[in-house]
Every structure is written in C-alpha cells, then in structure tokens.
C-alpha cells in the first residue's frame, strides 16, 4: 500500500484558509439576524394600560419582593405580561430534524471512509499482521 504524500501548503494559502473559516463564522452569526428582522416588528403593538398588583394576580409576598427589587406595578406588569409562544411549525421542525440527522449521517459516512485510509496507512493492509 503506497502512503499518501500530502501537499505542503504555502504561507499565503495558510492565511487564506484561516480567514475563510472566520468569514464563515461571521456570516452564520448574521444570517438569523436578517431572518428575524422581518418578524420582530409585528409584536410591538401592545396597548399601554394601567395595572394594579391585584389585576396582575400577584400575592402580597410576591408584591413585597417586587418592591424590594425596586419595581412598581407598572414596571412589573411589563415583565409579567411578556410571555413565550410555544406554537410549533411542523414543517420547520421536520426540516430542522432532517438537517441535523443528515449532517451527522454524512459526517459519519465520510469519516469512516477517511478513517479506513488512516488505519491502512498506520497499521498496514488488513491482511498483514501487526505487532504491538
């Protein structure tokens, strides 16, 4: 089995490769920002109304603690009424699941092929016995 002789990478190529991976990181950091900027503006239409501790369903002990933290009922109402929405988009869920599973599947396949090469070069062909 002839061993693979790797190419020697010139300095400029090394620099290019380091920068490439950096650019890739920044791009993937900014993508969700562009996707989300379309949807974010819709929710900012909450009507301002006056609140009391009772209407917020806050008990007396809770009210004490809120006040110790320096919050009055208006400021607290903003936090209390800010709720999460857990509706699931089944299509997106399926796409996401497929992407993750596909990624691992692809990676394990390719890794396995590369790994066989590594082992063959390190230990010799599988027909030959190795001493350890």
């Amino acid at each position, binding site marked *: 089995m002839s061993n693979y002789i790797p190419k020697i990478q010139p300095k400029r190529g090394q620099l290019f490769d380091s920068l490439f991976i950096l650019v*890739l990181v920044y791009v993937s950091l900014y993508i969700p920002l562009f996707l989300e900027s379309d949807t974010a503006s819709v929710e900012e239409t909450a009507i301002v109304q006056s609140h009391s501790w009772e209407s917020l369903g806050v008990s007396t002990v809770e009210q004490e603690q809120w006040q110790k*933290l320096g919050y009055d009922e208006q400021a607290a109402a903003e*936090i209390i009424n800010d709720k999460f929405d857990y509706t699931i988009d089944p299509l997106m869920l399926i796409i996401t699941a497929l992407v993750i599973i596909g990624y691992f599947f692809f990676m394990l396949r390719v890794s396995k092929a590369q790994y066989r090469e590594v082992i063959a070069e390190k230990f010799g062909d599988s027909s030959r016995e190795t001493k*350890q």
Partner: protein
Amino acid sequence: MTATSTTAENTQRISMLKVLNPFHVWALGVGIVLVGEFMGWNFSVAKGGAYGALIACWVIGLLYSCVAMIDSEVTSTVAAAGGQYTQAKHIIGPLMAFNVGLYLVMAYTMLEAADALIVGDLMSAVAAATGYEGLSPQPFVVLTIAFLAWLNYRGVFMTLTLNFVITLFAFMAIIALFVGTDPLNPGSVLKHSDLLTELPYGWIGVVAALQFGMWYYLGIEGTCQAAEEVRSAGRAIPLGTIGGILTLLVAATLTWYISTGLMPWQYLGQATTPLYDAASIIGNPSLQVVLFIGTMFAAIASANGCINDAARAWFSMGRDRYMPTWFGAIHPHYRTPFRSIIFLIPIAVSFAFTGLLDQVITFSILSGLLGYTFMSINMIKFRKMWPLDVIKRGYIHPFHPIPALVLLGLCSVVYFATFLGYGASLLSIMAFYIVASVWFVMRRYQFVKRGDQFTMPWPRPKGY
C-alpha cells in the same frame, strides 16, 4: 509504534510542560462553568417557571454526569491537548475530528467573549452606582481578554493556579449567600411556599427550559484539554472532572434554591445577575460585595479557562494540518501554543463587539451540544473497537452503554428545546458546520498526512 518512524526521530523536540495536578483540572472545568450560576441559568425560569428550571437543572445535570463519565474514560487513555478532538480522530475519523475541533474552538471563544462582556458591564454598573452614568464597557472588555491572553501565553501553571483561587472564591460566595438566607428557618428570608407557582407553560415549557439549563454546567468537558499538561493524566483528569461535576451539581441546586426563594419567577426569568440581586434583597451590604466580586471572578475564571481550551483545540488542529501548520507551534520557553493564543484574541474581541450576544451565546451552546452528541456515538464505538481488555484505561465508567444512550436521548430533547426558541439560529449554525465540513473534505484534507493522525500506542481497532 511501528509504521510511523519519522525522519526527525533524533532531532530535538519541544512539548508542553507536564505541571498540572487534579486541582488545576477541577479549576479549569468548574472555572469555565461557574459563571453560569451567577447569570444565564435563570433564563430557564422564564421559559418554564421555577419548577421547570429545577427539573431542567437536574435533567441536564444527568446529561452532564454522562458527559463527565464518558469523557473521563476516553481521556484517561487519550492524553493529548486536543481533548475530544483527538478522541474523534482516533475513534471516528478525520471529518468528525475536524468538526469536533471547530465545536471546541467556537464554543470556547464565544463563551470567552460573553464573559469579557460581563466584566465590562459590571464595571459600567459600578460606575453608574458611584454616580458616573454611561461608562463604556469596551476598554474593560479588551483589558480582560488582553490580560488573560497574556497570562495564558506565559504558561499554563500560573494561569490555572489563578483560576483555582478565583473559582474557589466564587464557589464560596454561593455558599456564603446560602448561609446568609438563613436556610434553617424557611419562611424568614426564603419564601418558597409563597413564591413557587405551578408550571406556567405546562410541560412544553419544561422542555424549552432545558436549553438554558445547560448554563449550569456548560464547559465542564473542557477538562480534557489539559490532558497533555497534567501529571498522570489517566488519574488526574477523571478525578478533576468528576469532582467538578459534583461541585456544580451542588452549586446549581443551591443557586436555584436561593433564587426561587427570594424572587418572583417572572423577575428571575429576566434578571441579569440573579445571585447578586438575591444578595441585595437580603439587604446585607457585605454579602452584596462578596457576591459582586464572586460574579466578577466567575466571569474572569471562565474567560481564562476558555482561552486555555480554545487555544489548545486550535493548536491541535494546526499540529495535524487540519488548520494551517503555523498554529501548531509551541513557545520554546513558556511551552504554550502561543500562536493559537494570539490568533484567537482579535476574534474573541470582535465577537464581544458585534452586539449579537444572544446569537453568540446560542452558537456557543449549540456547538457544545453538537459535541455531546458526538461523545455518545464516540463512546459506543470506542468500547466496540477496543473492548475493555484490549487497552488499559485509567478509569472505566459504569453501566455502559446506558450513559451513552441517555446522553444521545437528552441531546435530541435539547435540540428540540433550542428549536422552540431559536429555530433560525439552529439552522444557520448547522449550515455553518455543513459548509465547513465540505470545505474540509474538498480543500483542507489534501494537506493532512493520513497515517500520522493516529498517534496513540493502541493496537489495530476491531473491524478495520
């Protein structure tokens, strides 16, 4: 070692210094994580309520116990600076190793940026409290990164000894706070019976909370990165890692107990510094100071450990030519991967200055999560390819393959939790790793010497 007799056998070689002991390993692991107790974990309260956060704390604690056990076993046989990266290279294959290396570098560098931002914001907060509004956090962010990088550059022993001291202080701060809440008389300070509510979003909220439950422990697996610098790695790493996860389980439970007994869950869910707020409610000024310093130290310790780990992962990839070889250099005097440390400084600073903290943190958590998914696959293959009697292990974890399968199952649930709040980020981060993988196969792998990647003195794996 028969096949890889290199030409440079007789020439001089430099290597990293073996100077660390189990306490350093503990400091590296717990140091990276503990900041998560001072801030961040409480977002799980917003997602699933106080009880949801407790369930998340323990379920994710189980996930990390599996991580710690699996990691300890593999690392006790693979003593190399790359940690999980080197494991992947020996057990699964080059492409997986490349991805794991990237997970490590991304997770740690981004966490480091977030930590430095915390230090900067705390400085602004102090300035505001003393009557100077609008202090820019930027110089303090840069100072934190610059100082810690300098420390890392000058040698691993001093770096992790400092980490031990400040991590211990931060941990003691949590204990002090717990004592300060008068835990023997529930109802006097802690008001759990009045503040704990039903699950506000039901069980789906509990699942969603799992994502931020990772904050309690994220980074404990970093202990492996020290493997090349620890004396008797086979014993020190398992000891430090498992000691670390026990410390964190205690710290996480105490943190939850203190915070939910003092603050309404809606407030807690959006607090920036929950433990410090807890100290302010109690109204004890010296506790407040201790908790402030604790928060600061925890953030610094975390950034410090992250620099250490990210640089070692990047260095290892350079050494194997997965990344440019230039990064595979070791400082002849300080014995640190000095070029990797330098290269990652501007990157960490730029992450801190993007203003995308949310995004950066999600990227960091997900990279960690991808790494844990890898670990479960890795463990199953490791036992299959080298059964217990074939190679000596410094530590053997019990109940195999249950921890690996539990880990895989929990990872899937956390992916789903991430999907619930950050679906777009999840897809874009996956896109990053997919493009990077293709790039590795098409371009980088041509520079890699095949047989040299396998460096452990293990026999031929079964089935190959």
